[in-house]
């Protein structure tokens, strides 16, 4: 459904031209009302109330926001979250880029297998995948044993930011590969041949022609992975530990343990604004339509 709304906003497929000025567009406009109403009631209204609470409780003002800066916890956790999210984004890009590139170069069957290899874990339950990582990362688990055989003792990943980052990289990989692939498959390879025909070496042709053309895919994949990672709850909750909390866990602690809805609302608002800023910033560089288009395409696979 979200794919539908986005397509109508950016580029209507085929038939329907951009909405005419006359009365004919009104019928189409009315079709959006239920969706907007649902969004308004289920998302925007609660979001607004949560924001309102964050600036009115316990007293009107910005005290909840000031506390975020001074409580000594939020900043630590926030920067840890941003760091892990950035590392995961980078790791998925480094792994996903060659993979997506290969997908554009192989034959039909191989491509199908490669798509399946991305999508099957994507369709597997999130919890199941995280518990699989728990077994891999625990003390005396396969990773710990492997490290022991090469002489590294006691490097248990479970409960550390490293362990969370590793598992999140695997969980987030489809969100990077799919937009990358969709961007790359649209690149005309004749351009590379043309560059080589004009005397460029293959590597240079790739770097100066292909790489810039795939930028949209990198940015949309990057935004998607970064935004999802910075708000991710499941993996940090299962594989992390309370002393290596991420923002989503802090939010949960503020609401569930301290029952401090106002402070949680303030934290949530900051995370939301931060993510929106990032998306708009990335939109400047990559063109928001490409970025969000890729995002919607990738999410459609869920």
């Amino acid at each position: 459904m979200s794919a539908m709304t986005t397509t109508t906003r950016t580029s209507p497929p085929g038939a329907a031209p951009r909405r005419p000025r006359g009365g004919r567009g009104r019928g189409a406009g009315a079709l959006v009302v239920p969706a907007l109403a649902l969004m308004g009631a289920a998302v925007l209204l609660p979001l607004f109330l949560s924001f309102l609470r964050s600036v009115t409780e316990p007293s009107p003002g910005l005290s909840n926001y000031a506390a975020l800066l001074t409580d000594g916890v939020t900043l630590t956790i926030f920067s840890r979250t941003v760091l892990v999210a950035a590392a995961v984004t980078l790791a998925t890009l480094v792994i996903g880029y060659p993979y997506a590139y290969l997908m554009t170069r192989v034959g039909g069957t191989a491509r199908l297998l490669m798509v399946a290899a991305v999508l099957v874990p994507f369709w597997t339950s999130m919890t199941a995948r995280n518990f699989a990582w728990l077994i891999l990362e625990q003390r005396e688990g396969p990773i710990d044993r492997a490290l022991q055989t090469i002489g590294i003792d006691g490097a248990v990943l479970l409960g550390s930011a490293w362990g969370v980052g590793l598992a999140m990289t695997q969980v987030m990989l489809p969100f990077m590969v799919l937009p990358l692939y969709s961007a790359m498959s649209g690149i005309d390879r004749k351009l590379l041949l043309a560059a080589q025909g004009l005397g460029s070496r293959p590597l240079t042709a790739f770097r100066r022609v292909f790489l810039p053309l795939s930028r949209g895919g990198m940015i949309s994949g990057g935004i998607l992975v970064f935004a999802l990672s910075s708000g991710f709850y499941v993996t940090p909750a299962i594989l992390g530990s309370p002393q290596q909390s991420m923002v989503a866990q802090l939010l949960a602690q503020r609401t569930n343990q301290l029952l401090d809805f106002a402070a949680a609302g303030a934290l949530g608002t900051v995370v939301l604004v931060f993510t929106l800023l990032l998306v708009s910033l990335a939109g400047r560089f990559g063109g928001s339509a490409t970025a969000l288009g890729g995002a919607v395409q990738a999410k459609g696979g869920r």
Partner: protein
Amino acid sequence: MLRRRRAVVPIVAAVLAVSSCGVGVEPDPDTLTYASFGGTFTAGQQAAWQEPWTEATGMRFANTSPSDPVLIRAQVGTGSVLWDLADVTPYFARQYCGELVEPLDLPDVDRSQYDPSLIGDCYFGAYRFGLLISYDTERWPDPETAPRTVADFFDPVKFPGRRGVVSDVANGMLEYGALADGVAPEDLYPLDVDRAFTSWDRIKDDTTFAANNGALLQQATGGQVDMMMLVSARTAAVMDEGAPFTPVWDTTMISFNTLVVPKGAPNRDKAMDFLEFVLRPEQSAKFAELTGTSPTNDAARPHLKGNEGRVDAMNPSVNTGRSITTDPEWWGEHYTEVAERYLGWLNG
């Protein structure tokens, strides 16, 4: 311009229509909605408390879980209270007495059967459990050289190894820290939080802070910790799984839970009647047997078998040390500030 403004009207109307859905569910006067923790707890409360009460009065029950205080706050805050009963900690009840939970009104309970420290305006201990310190006997096979005191848990030099604790600051973990730092048991409250953290500082890097009881149970059965602080029923479950843990009987912190009636509960009075029934000796004993906890009623005589008997901190022939009950009054006063400090300490 004009057209756009007109489009706003149906959207706003629809938003209001959708958001007003779900308000005004009629409460059923013959059904008590009961929030607890699921699993053996729900099964235990059904068999020991609900079924006999249904038989006697015809009152039915709708069980739900988890019994999170945050859900009570959300229900009371939005004026749509659905729960009649909730199984919570006494310090939550104390902290939000009259605000989120109804003051208890239980004239027919025989208070002489209860330790006065189990009773407050908004709480009345329904069952209790120890926070047990236990260790892996394969790691320390010889009882003579194994951990034997609370202080041993906080001594990473004498007893190197991975510690596990549930990350819940009010479960008794801070009290153990204070005791290990030399606070006398009789002077435990008001709790010296600084001294408690001094002890925890020593083993912070050696400790896995588990998100909840189930997570620590899983860590223990998977051989991820060598020593731990876990509630008694779950410690018994770890032992049932074949993990070689045995309790340390030095000083044991005892906690209890209470049933509360959320503020504005649809069937407040009927919930109170049910509470009086639950607190009778037979009901108290039966629930303890079914869940591996200890009764709060001194006249109750449960028979805990197997590993559940081996972790029964209230049984003097099992617990050769002493026990102290956590103080809900102190925690009710100080929970928020201590929890904030703990959060900072943990992530610092």
